[in-house]
Structures are given as C-alpha cells and as structure tokens.
C-alpha cells in the first residue's frame, strides 16, 4: 500500500514544530507548575533536553529501514504475528490519543468559546475536517501546516510582545527552591506529551520524506523549536500569573492572554490564544489520526487506506464523548495512566525493538530495505 507521497524536509520541520507544541501550549504550564512551583521553567528546559535524547533514539530506529514505516519495521523485527499484535497496540494508542485531543478541544470550546453548543456538535465539525485532511493525504496536511506555521508565529509573537509589560520578576523568585524530585516529576509531563508521543511521526519519517538525511536534523531542530515555545509560554505564565495561579487554573495560558492590557485600549485578546491552540491541536490530531489509519491499513495489508477514514471518524467522535465522563476523571487519568501508557508505547516498545535488532542484526542486514 505504499503511496508515492513525498514531503520536503522543511514541511516535515513544520509538522514536527506544531506536533511538539501541540496541547502543551495551553494546558502544560499548569501541570509543570503543580509540583515545581516557580521553577516550572527549569522543569520545561530539562524536559526539552531529555526529549531531544528520545527523538535521537527515534531517528536511529527510523534509519534502520529508510523505506519502511514503523508498522512494517515492527513486522520485520518481531515476525508476522507478534509484530502485528504490537502494531495493533500502537494503532490503538494513536487512535485513543486522537479521541483524547478531540475531547480536549471539545471541552475547551464548550467551556470558553461557545458555551451553549453541545460538545457533540463541535467535535463533529472537527472530525469532518480531520477526515477530509486524511483523505486528501500527507502532502495536503504538510502544505496546510506550512500556512499555519506563519499564522502561528505571528500570533505568538503578538502575544509575547503585548504581555511583556505585565511581567513581574518577583514571581519567579526564589529560583531553584524546588527539589530535584518535584522538578523531575513535572518535566515528565513535557517529555511524554511532546517527545515520547512523537513516536507516531515514525509513520512518516523517513519513508515519506524526499531528503531523509537532512530530515534527521530537522526532527531534532523541530523538537527544539517546539520546546522553546513551550519554555517561553511557561516562563510567561509564571512571570505574569505567579506559580499558584498557574498551577490552579485548567488553562493558564488562556488566563495569561486575558491579562493583556495596553493603555486600556488593546484588551481581551485571548482569541489569539484560541487560534494558537486550535492550530497546534489540529495538526497534532491529524498526525495521530493519519498514523492510526495508515497503520491499520498496513497491518491488514489493504490496497488503500481511504475507505477506513469515514467509519473511524465516526468512532472517534463517539469515543471523544465517552472516554472522559468528567474533568476530574480526565485530570487523574492524564496525570497517571496516560503517562504509563505513553511510556509503554513510546519508550518501552522502541527499546524492545533496539534489543531485538541487536540480536538479529546479521540476519536483518541481508534484507534489501536495510540502509
């Protein structure tokens, strides 16, 4: 089912940046500040650093077989049945993450933007766009991301500049008060959401990129730029709102944008934050959805993955309505179970692949797809 779709390494960079920022831009500062208090920005820096190491591991795995996707590599390494079972787990994870992100967007929109609209309506609208994007293919997704990134950085720059008069340097002091354990605990959230979950990008890296060699660098640089954006947002949250308020709010960056006040004239520009969040969220969701549908197509050896989009789009909407009965359940789930699940999919499984690859190296070198 290999299609002749190729994206350039710049387009891949854009996708990685938007994927890394993803949900982190709106909800992560609260998770970071919960344990690390005013040292959340240190946790963000450490998280980005460790995240880069994980991305490096992914690029290593990707370059064993430059022409195959993650699901195919799985099948090659573990044999037909175990490989397919592990790939099915991967597909299940990405599919569940799509539904989770759709729930995030649905709750946010119904809470803050359109309170009288039911969540099913906003999620259905999003799902229609999602299905459309995946049906049109990876090239379309990449090109739309190219347009999005310009809008994103324009709005982000606007936000950072207009919030800067509100910065209170006292909020960040005393520096390095938190102990190592709470900083490590906090940075784990960032590592998982922006780097470990990037395992789904192995479905397009490096098989669908026309310059695989430079894409390796691109993957790392994209992750670093995304990490910097998260660090800046976290720092601004702490500097403007203070550690307590940041930790207590569900959407701290949204509260940050509400604080903007330039001469009592430019006020309440939080709609820019909504735009930023929807751009990142949509790109991340589309990549998850693409990975799950394309992966499922490859597991079942289908000739075309497009017939799966409509039914799975329907299931995603229903799942997004039922997976979290309420916000408390969601908060507890995403701080405990989701972390372990992501780590299993994104760290444990790749490390298992590394071990199996090391054992079977001689045998696999004969494969024509090996680099």
């Amino acid at each position, binding site marked *: 089912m290999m299609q002749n779709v190729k994206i350039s390494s710049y387009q891949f960079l854009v996708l990685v940046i938007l994927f890394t920022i993803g949900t982190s831009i709106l909800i992560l500062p609260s998770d970071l500040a919960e344990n690390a208090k005013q040292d959340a920005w240190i946790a963000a820096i450490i998280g980005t650093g460790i995240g880069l190491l994980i991305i490096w591991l992914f690029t290593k795995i990707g370059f064993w077989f430059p022409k195959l996707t993650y699901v195919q590599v799985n099948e090659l390494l573990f044999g037909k049945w175990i490989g397919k079972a592990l790939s099915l787990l991967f597909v299940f994870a990405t599919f*569940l993450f799509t539904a989770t992100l759709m729930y995030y967007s649905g709750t946010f929109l119904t809470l803050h933007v359109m309170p009288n609209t039911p969540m099913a309506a906003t999620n259905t609208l999003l799902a229609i766009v999602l299905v459309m994007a995946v049906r049109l293919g990876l090239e379309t997704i990449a090109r739309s991301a190219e347009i999005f990134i310009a809008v994103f950085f324009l709005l982000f720059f606007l936000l950072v500049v207009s919030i800067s008069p509100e910065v209170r340097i006292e909020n960040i002091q005393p520096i390095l008060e938190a102990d190592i354990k709470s900083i490590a605990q906090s940075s784990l959230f960032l590592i998982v959401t922006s780097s470990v979950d990037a395992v789904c990008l192995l479905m397009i890296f490096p098989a669908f990129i026309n310059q695989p060699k430079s894409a390796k660098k691109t993957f790392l640089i994209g992750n670093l730029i995304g990490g910097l954006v998260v660090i800046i947002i976290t720092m601004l949250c702490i500097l403007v709102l203070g550690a307590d308020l940041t930790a207590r709010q569900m959407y701290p960056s949204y509260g940050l944008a509400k604080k903007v006040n330039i001469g009592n004239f430019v006020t309440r520009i939080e709609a820019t934050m909504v735009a930023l969040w929807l751009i990142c969220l949509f790109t991340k969701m589309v990549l998850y959805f693409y990975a799950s549908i394309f992966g499922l197509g490859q597991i079942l050896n289908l000739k075309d993955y497009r017939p799966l989009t*409509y*039914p799975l789009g329907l299931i995603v909407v*229903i799942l997004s309505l039922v997976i*979290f009965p309420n916000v408390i359940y969601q908060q507890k789930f995403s701080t405990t179970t*989701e972390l372990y699940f992501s780590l299993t999919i994104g760290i444990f499984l790749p490390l298992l692949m590394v071990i199996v690859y090391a054992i079977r190296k001689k045998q696999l070198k004969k494969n024509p797809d090996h680099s």
Partner: protein
Amino acid sequence: MLKSVGILLVAAIILFIEVPSLLEKKYKKELIVFSMLLAIGVGLGMAHSMGKSIPNPNDLLTFIFKPLHDALIR
C-alpha cells in the same frame, strides 16, 4: 430517537460515498473492513444516543496500569 435517525442518516451518506467506488475497483477486503468498522461505529453511536453506557477503553487502561502506579508511587 431523533439522534438515532441522524446517525443512520450519516451512515447512509458514508455508504453512498464509499461503496460504489470500492465495488468498481473490486476491493473486497477493503469493503469487509469498511463495513465492519462502520457497523461498530453505528452500533456505538446508537447505544450512546439512547443513553446506554459504552465500555470505556480508559477504564481498561487504568485497570492495567494501576498496579504499576501503586508500586511506583508509595
């Protein structure tokens, strides 16, 4: 009731869009997978619209990972 009719309508539209091209290309396996997934989707949608509780995959995950969590955080 209205919601169930809506879901059936959506399913009908999906069938109308997808099935003719699949039959034309004689993609048998794709058609089987497509129908199964659509049946699951419609089934879940009907159950949800009638207020029945759907098994939550997150409960399963919580059940699997709870022992690990308890072992780590103590």
